[in-house]
């Protein structure tokens, strides 16, 4: 949009990502009486405060605190969608969704297809994921790749308050089941969010920064580290084309292809384990589409194939960091 024609930006106080998602939910619940939330402890606001105060406004029929019954939280959300409501299924943290995988994988993801289009599984599955202050192996996983590989679902992996809010609004309005991975480590990150939250389209990446020397693709919690690394590289005169995918399925293949064709150097960074991670898909797709000859170098940076340890030095050792991103970028630039 021509800057001269744009309306003056509303003065928006920066808010936290968790607050941004709270406002998105509240906005949609006001707009549409069929939107509701189910999950453990949501009546007291959710364990991160994502639902703070909503029980007062919407009451216990729409902010439903449930038993510790993940399979039924997930499956009941589906059932409620089948009769025309729009449930937000809160999983507390992603790892507990593993208690509900039949409901998610065999039922939610497949029901529309199996029944020839009769079912409308319009659910949002919120799953705060990733590393978060020494939470160890059962509370720190990043398995978003699994769901990009799973037909029938949309996968959102936002990294900023505005993106989280916009994608959550889009997810709630979508008739598709959306896996919405809240980035636990960024819940407290702040940024501007418009007071009326518009839905963001799925599959459209955000260019954090433009540059000609290196394409850096990332998403979710690791984005701020990538931004810092890109800033450091910029100080060395290296122009990084920094792409935050925002959604993993669909993902913005066009943006990545255009960038990689231009820079001829591709680095994909994710917090998840590298082996079998979605970085492989992106790299492979770029090679398939552009041909290997179009690239000078390409690589991925992800976690080693380890469960997440508790002790800080161990966690730090396996964590993707700004320093590791910088080192990977430099090795690519040298190739």
């Amino acid at each position, binding site marked *: 949009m021509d800057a001269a024609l744009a309306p003056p930006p509303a003065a928006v106080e920066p808010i936290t990502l968790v607050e941004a998602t709270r406002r998105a939910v509240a906005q949609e619940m006001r707009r549409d009486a069929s939107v509701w939330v189910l999950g453990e402890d949501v009546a007291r606001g959710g364990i991160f405060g994502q639902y703070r105060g909503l029980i007062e406004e919407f009451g216990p029929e729409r902010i439903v605190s449930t038993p510790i019954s993940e399979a039924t939280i997930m499956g009941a959300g589906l*059932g409620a969608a089948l009769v025309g409501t729009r449930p937000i299924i809160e999983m507390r943290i992603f790892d507990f969704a593993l208690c509900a995988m039949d409901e998610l994988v065999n039922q939610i993801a497949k029901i529309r297809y199996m029944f020839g289009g009769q079912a409308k599984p319009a659910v949002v599955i919120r799953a705060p994921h990733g590393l978060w202050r020494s939470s160890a192996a059962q509370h720190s996983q990043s398995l978003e790749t699994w769901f990009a590989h799973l037909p029938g679902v949309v996968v959102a992996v936002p990294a900023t308050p505005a993106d989280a809010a916009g994608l959550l609004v889009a997810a709630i309005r979508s008739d598709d089941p959306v896996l919405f991975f809240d980035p636990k480590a960024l819940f407290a990150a702040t940024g501007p969010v418009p007071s009326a939250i518009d839905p963001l389209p*799925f599959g459209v990446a955000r260019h954090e920064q433009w540059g000609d020397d290196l394409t850096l693709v990332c998403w979710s919690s690791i984005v701020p580290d990538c931004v810092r690394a890109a800033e450091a590289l910029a100080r060395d005169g290296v122009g990084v084309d920094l792409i935050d995918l925002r959604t993993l399925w669909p993902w913005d293949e066009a943006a990545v292809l255009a960038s990689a064709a231009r820079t001829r150097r591709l680095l994909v960074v994710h917090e998840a384990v590298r082996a079998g991670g979605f970085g492989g898909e992106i790299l492979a797709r770029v090679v398939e589409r552009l041909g290997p000859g179009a690239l000078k170098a390409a690589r991925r940076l992800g976690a080693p194939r380890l469960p997440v340890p508790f002790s800080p030095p161990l966690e730090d050792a396996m964590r993707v960091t700004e320093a590791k991103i910088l080192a990977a970028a430099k090795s690519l630039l040298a190739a």
Partner: protein
Amino acid sequence: MEASTEHAIARLTELYRLMARIRAFEEVALAAHAAGELPGYLHPSIGQEAVAAGVCSVLRRDDRITSTHRGHGHALAKGAAVRGMMRELFGRAGGVCRGKGGSMHIADFSVGMLGANGVVAGGIPIAVGAAQGLRLLGCDAIVACFFGDGAINRGPFLEGLNWAALYRLPVLFVCEDNAVAAFTAACSVTAGPGAVARAESCGVAAESVDGNDVEAVAEAAARLVARVRRGDGPHLLHARTYRLLGHTSTDQAAWRDPAEVAAAKGRDPIARARQRLLAAGVAETVLDAILAEARAEMEAARADALAAPWPDAAEAWEDVQDIGAETMEQA
């Protein structure tokens, strides 16, 4: 003849017809399967028709049901279109699920049949959620949730019953106890007194019924559905029945005790309803006509399915999702 008796006879005749249609549907489908006319395999419910017929006969059209892998009877009893179902079994165009589901994933949302399920107990969480959604929408429809005796050993049974009781949801749980889970006698894998006790321990009122007596099933279901609908919370109906055939269309069930099977045949729900109707003075010819009509209806559906075209390959790419669906060209 008193009006009430007349009414009872008319009602039992309709239940007889419904059971006959379910049986004919499955017998014809099994014959088609044996003849290589339909792909995959089937889970027949022959011998269990009284449960589907009795329960669904007391439901409203806008009530919902969830079903199991053995769901033909539930679907027919809820009013699903026969030809659409048969075409689905055949994997043909015009199948109620466009050929994508097959026997194990029969669904007809237009009559409130929210789907069979290939996963044992998979329908339970869905049913309780559907009930919760209906209440949120201010609708007084209820949900009947069918599952087998094998399902009461899976976690979702506990979770779903506790959940339904907690929120006092309008759900009628129906445990179709056919004495067997796949190839294993149910009693050999289930400890304790069974479904009724388990339901009660989760705060769900429950009772047992002779699941081969279609009138008894209908009477009990009517009573429980009335309570469920007026807000008394979920109930469970435990229907004792018997699966007369094997687990699937390819299982001859040679491992079953022949004496047990023979005894069960003596309790066949259709034969029992017929005896009662005959005793009440209904003419044999009337009942035979019902059987013949059912058979003819299903044979016609078979012929229709066999003549129907296959779905177009491109349809495989439809009904996946709105956003991010791949196209056939990408393949």
